[in-house]
């Protein structure tokens, strides 16, 4: 029997706020354990939460950008459960009235566009982190406690591990475009749990799902879903029943493992958080936030193809990151040929960025400088080969290409008379090669070009060298 895979993803992202969701503590990653805490996030007796308005703004921005129905009434609920990383033993979250309902995330798979539907996006606070085997036992680091999170729940609308991967990539791109989250899985600012079930192709009733946890990269999400789909298919094929359970992804063994014994039916006893008053959002507020939403990656992708005549692949790379797309677009607007800009950006620029491990914004090469470089190549002032060295220097020093060329005296020789003189010399000094050419060995011309270039210390304009040499040879 042929099966259809049904996947729904729950993604938690940490919002880019300076302070925590309900107190003034810093959200900076990587501090010493329990140094970014205060009575409020420690849940000491008598403290009260105070809403970080920035977290609401970022969530509203996200909802608007993904086409959600954004509520004008923002209220919070308590989710009650006992766990040592949760000092209050309840989490402030949103239950029956999430800020954002519906909406979708656009994906492109095998050249096809598809919109993955969202169920909801709500706000909640993060819990702390248990650290085992410290000071002779287990400890808890509460630096993370109270960080603002957005939980993004998709509909069971994803039908392959590849789609799941594409969804995560697109979601992350979108969130980063919006500047609402770093979406850094290594630092835990993006976390993903996956729900998967299978059903006979053509049927509509959902099968029993399993939830996969402990996913630490998009690649592992994909792998775990591939594994789990096969496992379920095999189990059903063997006449077994799928148990609704949580399974852990073991990345080393590349398989999911049942967490069976720990499963208890949770009753979170949600009720409205009495310490926070609901926030009413006015039309003016939505207007303001809407003005802060940039052009989203999928729209920009199509525009880049249309406006800059980029290939689908190039447009995909250029729009994968907002700063990169901005860099590309800014450079192109300075009059450089977009296709060439894309090649430079995908080639030398990203290579240097990755080697230096810096962000695009921190690159010392500015769009105007790259545009200038490309124009210098076009004008024949320098060769493409030399341009690569010039670019490396631009990247290292932040100087503009004209200055580098001037300093190093590497201006390309485009003076025809000068080049003709070099050619004359070379032909004079290499009679054998000239003979070869004359006797019909046309490939000898390439060799002569090389000799001319060498004689000019690489400064001669290769295009002119080719033209002038050919003329000369034809005259022979």
């Amino acid at each position, binding site marked *: 029997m042929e099966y259809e895979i049904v996947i729904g993803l729950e993604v938690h992202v940490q919002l880019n706020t300076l302070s925590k969701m309900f107190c003034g503590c810093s959200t900076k990653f990587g501090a010493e354990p329990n140094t970014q805490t205060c009575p409020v996030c420690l*849940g*000491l007796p*008598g403290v009260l939460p*105070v809403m970080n308005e920035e977290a609401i703004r970022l969530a509203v921005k996200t909802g608007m950008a993904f086409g959600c129905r954004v509520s004008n009434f923002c209220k919070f609920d308590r989710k*009650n459960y006992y766990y040592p990383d949760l000092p209050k033993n309840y989490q402030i979250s949103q239950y029956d009235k999430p800020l954002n309902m519906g909406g979708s995330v656009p994906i492109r798979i095998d050249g096809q566009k598809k919109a993955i539907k969202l169920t909801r996006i709500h706000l909640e606070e993060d819990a702390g982190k248990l650290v085992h085997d410290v000071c002779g036992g287990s400890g808890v680091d509460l630096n993370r406690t109270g960080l603002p999170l957005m939980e993004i729940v998709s509909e069971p609308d994803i039908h392959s591990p590849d789609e799941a991967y594409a969804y995560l990539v697109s979601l992350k791109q979108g969130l980063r475009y919006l500047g609402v989250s770093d979406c850094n899985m290594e630092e835990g600012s993006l976390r993903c749990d996956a729900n998967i079930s299978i059903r006979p192709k053509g049927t509509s009733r959902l099968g029993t799902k399993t939830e996969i946890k402990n996913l630490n990269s998009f690649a592992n999400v994909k792998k775990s879903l591939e594994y789990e789909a096969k496992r379920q298919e095999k189990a059903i094929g063997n006449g077994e029943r799928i148990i609704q359970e949580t399974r852990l992804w073991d990345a080393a063994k590349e398989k999911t493992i049942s967490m069976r014994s720990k499963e208890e039916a949770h*009753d979170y006893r949600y009720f409205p958080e*009495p310490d926070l008053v609901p926030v009413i959002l006015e039309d003016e507020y939505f207007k303001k936030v809407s003005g802060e939403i940039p052009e989203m990656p999928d729209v920009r992708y199509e525009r880049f193809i249309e406006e800059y005549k980029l290939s689908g692949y190039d447009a995909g790379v250029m729009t994968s990151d907002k700063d990169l797309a901005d860099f590309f677009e800014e450079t192109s607007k300075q009059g450089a040929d977009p296709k060439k800009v894309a090649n430079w950006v995908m080639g030398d620029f990203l290579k240097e960025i990755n080697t230096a491990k810096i962000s695009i914004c921190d690159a010392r090469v500015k769009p105007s400088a790259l545009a200038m470089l490309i124009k210098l190549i076009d004008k024949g002032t320098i060769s493409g080969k030399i341009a690569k060295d010039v670019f490396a220097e631009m990247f290292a020093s932040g100087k503009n290409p004209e200055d580098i060329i001037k300093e190093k005296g590497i201006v390309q020789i485009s003076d025809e008379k000068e080049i003709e003189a070099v050619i004359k010399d070379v032909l004079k000094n290499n009679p054998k090669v000239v003979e070869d050419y004359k006797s019909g060995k046309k490939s000898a011309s390439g060799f002569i070009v090389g000799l001319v270039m060498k004689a000019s210390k690489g400064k001669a304009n290769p295009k002119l060298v080719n033209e002038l040499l050919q003329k000369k040879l034809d005259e022979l």
Partner: protein
Amino acid sequence: MELCDKTIHDLSGMLAKKEIQPSEIMKSALSRMEKTGEFASFIKTFPEEAMKCAGEQDKKALKGSLSGIPVAIKDNMCIEGKGTTCASHILEGFTAPYTATAVQKLLDEGAIVIGKTNMDEFAMGSSTETSFFGNTLNPWNKDTVPGGSSGGSATSVALGEAAGSLGSDTGGSIRQPASLCGLVGLKPTYGRVSRYGLVAFASSLDQIGPFAKDVEDAAILLKAISGYDAKDSTSVNAEVPDYPSQIKNGIKGLRIGVPREYFLEGIDNEVEACVRKAIKDLENCGAEIRDVSLPRTEYAVATYYIIATAEASSNLARYDGVHYGLREKAGNIIDLYKKTRSAGFGDEVKRRIILGTYVLSSGYYDAYYLKAQKVRTLIKEDFSKAFGEVDVIVTPTSPTTAWKIGEKTDDPLKMYLSDIYTISANLAGIPAVSLNCGFSAGLPVGLQLQAAHFNEAVLLRTAYAFEQMNDYHKKRAFSETAENQVKYY
């Protein structure tokens, strides 16, 4: 009369005229405390620190409205560097690293904290008998309870140990002990006073308020603690009137409502007689007395015990032995929770946690919690409607005077019903005050006045008018000279 038996406004007047110094007041209060230990007002006192502080004030120009005034704080409000127990074993060893906003405001006005007062554990009770540290005695009769849960805050003022005190009121926990101890006790409008630093019992009902010997003192204390606090989202950003200057404006033409539902069964005859007489007095002051109806009154106790316990079950979840306070030895985390909470909480607290957990449980939520929230809205409506007709609603504070210690401890329901007149104000979020309106068998009877949201001024004005016609507020429960010793008044 000893200094410690005087009112705050009298003491402030004497300080202003330099007739006395802060340290003299403090000496008087501390010396009283030495004689009244058996009443057990306090869980912890700070005599040396208080004396030192008063001594420093002797040398300074006094600027605050409460300079040199000894105050007592209920032990569910945090003070930096001091223990905060909520009268519970489970908070043993916990030291607060910060100060509650309301307490800080008193300190900013120059008040000196002399101690943290006894209470029902986590403010759950009406008699101060559920305290882990033992019960507090009523200053008017040692065999009876002082009321609760802010029993110690009430007795500290009634005994002259403190000139004023702060309590918290979730269902009557200021007004009822004020009634049973013959004091003025005021529960402000929900949102009038910051709850930051008040250990939560039921967040949507809790409010901090003052205990005082008379209305003017209550007005001074209320003014000091009121106001918006950015640390409490539920505090309201509304202007704080100058309460003390407004109390003497009189009540001529004021419409005072008497809700018929408050004078049905269960009320003690003498209590009713005192309250009826008080209503007459108010009429004689020029107020217009009207009959009003609060038809949903009968549902208030049930509604309250669902909402308050639901919130409490969640608020008290943090006392688990993991982060601070008591921790019982256990082999794993679940046992740690179980053992710590079993050992740390008393019976009444456990009862309410279980009740609250139950009403929030899946499958019961709609029938209990949600239904209670709806009834709460209806109760609020009752009051809105009534306040369309009258300015103040007058009722008894408690159906009876102080009862014998132990009389109701085995019957929770009977205990719960002692709050029947005070609970509605918390559900509606309106301000209410209790003041002494007479005695029955030597025990004080309380008169409760309720007003619309943020109308504390009219409550104080009405209470003051009543006070001027009587001298109950001048009676002191404790006297140091044998012949003046008030036994059964």
